[in-house]
């Protein structure tokens, strides 16, 4: 970057090259780098807010003007307040219930106390929690299937040739196509009087699993197939047992590719989940967006905009967490990860 600008300024004449030399004199290199590292992302975000703000003012919908940044912020605050109010109501409800039960018990020692759960409507924050639990369950289950499967496929050319058409066939399938099937199958198969998990939860998890399986399978297989011949020869000369071979040689050397797959999978899992919740009325952020859309109040669009940003932010954080995990598990701490 810097060398490039240096050559271009030396090529151009007069004023620009003298400006370059002034900045070089005044500011040391590390300060320039730091300013770049901080200011450029901020400039990017400000530019986005500007476009959003000006664009929003010029869009009229049946629910009023499209919400700009300030309206979204307002709605965000009100969502937090609603959440806190709901929590207070819940605490008050349990308090009332406990007081009532205590009073009954004082009157009649043989009275069997009844405890009812609070059934208030889930708030925005609750929906975030539900979505996170669902996506992580689906993603972890998918990884538990995908990593061993990828290793097996990567180790055997024949198995790869056999599995590849199936993988390629299902990889591009949208969650929306799976959803009706999954819903029907879950309602038919998962029948119990006292279910441990809600049906909607199981449906979302399976849909997420089916869609987020493939990147991990493929990347793991590619990583395993690309192990250097030298290391394979070492394994052969040592006559390592198949399991030792997998744990000592195959897994460590394919870790970077496995994590590339896992990060892609988690990204897909998050996207799929929102769509699945929206369409299937499973609780979560997707349902929140859909409910607000159906609600159609003047605040709805602002609230949806908040949800959009929160969904993006959580997706980004999930990816960063995976990156941290990759750094932790990878033997090569110097490797450049982005």
């Amino acid at each position, binding site marked *: 970057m810097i060398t490039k600008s240096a050559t271009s300024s030396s090529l151009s004449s007069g004023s620009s090259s003298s400006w370059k030399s002034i900045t070089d004199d005044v500011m040391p290199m590390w300060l320039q780098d730091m300013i770049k590292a901080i200011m450029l992302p901020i400039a990017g975000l400000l530019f986005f807010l500007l476009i959003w703000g000006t664009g929003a003012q010029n869009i009229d919908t049946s629910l009023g003007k499209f919400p700009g940044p300030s309206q979204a912020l307002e709605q965000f605050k009100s969502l937090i307040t609603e959440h806190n109010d709901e929590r207070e109501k819940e605490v008050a409800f349990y308090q009332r219930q406990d007081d009532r039960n205590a009073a009954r018990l004082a009157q009649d020692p043989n009275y069997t106390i009844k405890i009812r759960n609070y059934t208030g409507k889930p708030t925005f924050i609750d929906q975030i929690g539900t979505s996170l639990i669902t996506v992580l369950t689906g993603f972890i289950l998918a990884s538990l299937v995908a990593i061993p499967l990828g290793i097996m496929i990567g180790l055997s050319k024949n198995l790869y040739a056999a599995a590849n058409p199936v993988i390629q066939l299902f990889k591009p399938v949208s969650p929306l196509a799976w959803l009706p099937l999954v819903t029907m199958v879950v309602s038919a198969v998962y029948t119990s009087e006292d279910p441990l998990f809600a049906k909607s939860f199981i449906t979302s998890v399976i849909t997420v699993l089916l869609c987020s399986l493939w990147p991990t399978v493929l990347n793991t297989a590619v990583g395993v197939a690309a192990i250097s*011949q*030298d*290391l394979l*020869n*070492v394994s*052969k*000369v*040592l*006559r*390592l047992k198949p399991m*030792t071979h997998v744990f*000592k*040689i195959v897994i*460590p*050397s394919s870790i970077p590719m496995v994590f590339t797959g896992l990060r892609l999978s988690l990204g897909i899992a998050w996207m799929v989940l929102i769509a699945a919740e929206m369409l299937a009325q499973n609780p979560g952020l997707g349902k929140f967006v859909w409910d607000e859309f159906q609600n159609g109040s003047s605040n709805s669009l602002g609230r949806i905009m908040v949800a959009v940003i929160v969904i993006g932010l959580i997706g980004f954080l999930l990816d960063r967490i995976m990156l941290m995990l990759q750094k932790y598990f990878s*033997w*090569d701490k*110097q490797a450049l990860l982005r």
Partner: protein
Amino acid sequence: MNSITDNTINPILELTGVGIEFPTPKGSFQALTDVNLKIAKGEMISLIGHSGCGKSTVLNIVAGLLQATEGGAVLEGKEVNEPGPERAVVFQNHSLLPWLTAYENVELAVKTVFDRSKTKAEMKEWIEYNLNLVHMGHAMHKRPDEISGGMKQRVGIARALAMEPKILLMDEPFGALDALTRAHLQDSVMEIQKDLGNTIIMITHDVDEAVLLSDRIVMMTNGPSATIGEVLKIDLPRPRNRIELADDPKYNQYRQQVLSFLYEKQRKVEPISNTKKVNKKDLSTEKQTA
């Protein structure tokens, strides 16, 4: 002195009529034909020849990493048909597992080979003994990316020695090292071989290295259909000292004989315009054999 007839009695390893063909899209490629060699216990043999002549292929057949299509290798009366730790290989580019320390790399080999015959404490002692043997005791808990190329190769040798192989196979072990490091490692190998009496086959490009280290130098003709051209017995007393040998007329005569084989009798005559193509082919065959 230069005769191909081999009078080794009670050989530990015997190659008889070894040949190998690789299938290629343009039909089969005969890399080796009729390689015959007997190696006695405790002998140090160098294989020398131009690149692409099939030296590595011979070594890989002995290692069991490649299967001869004609003839075969017999180690102590048993035919070689798969790789195994009794024929330990020191690879050209060290081939240490980058995620394990020097100690752990040797440990992996020791744990596999002495699975039941050594206790944990004995294994630890044996790993440390071998690392000390190659002068790596001070850095045994470092990972390959934290040590120099020469040190990596030392660990590679320690790993191979720790398997207690019947025969040690070294595939251009010092090819990637600078001259000074190479000399150090050559001295180490001579020292270890004197103490332990290992049987060693080493591939090399380096004439001085071959004369300095070997009991016999096996010179290979150019491929395709490469085979053993000449075998030169090096009758120099051990221990050998590289500085004293520099003025030794016998040493210089041996050197001259190898050089004359390589650059007069087996001179690579290829038109320059073809060099690139040939190099490519060399690379691809090396990939197959490596």
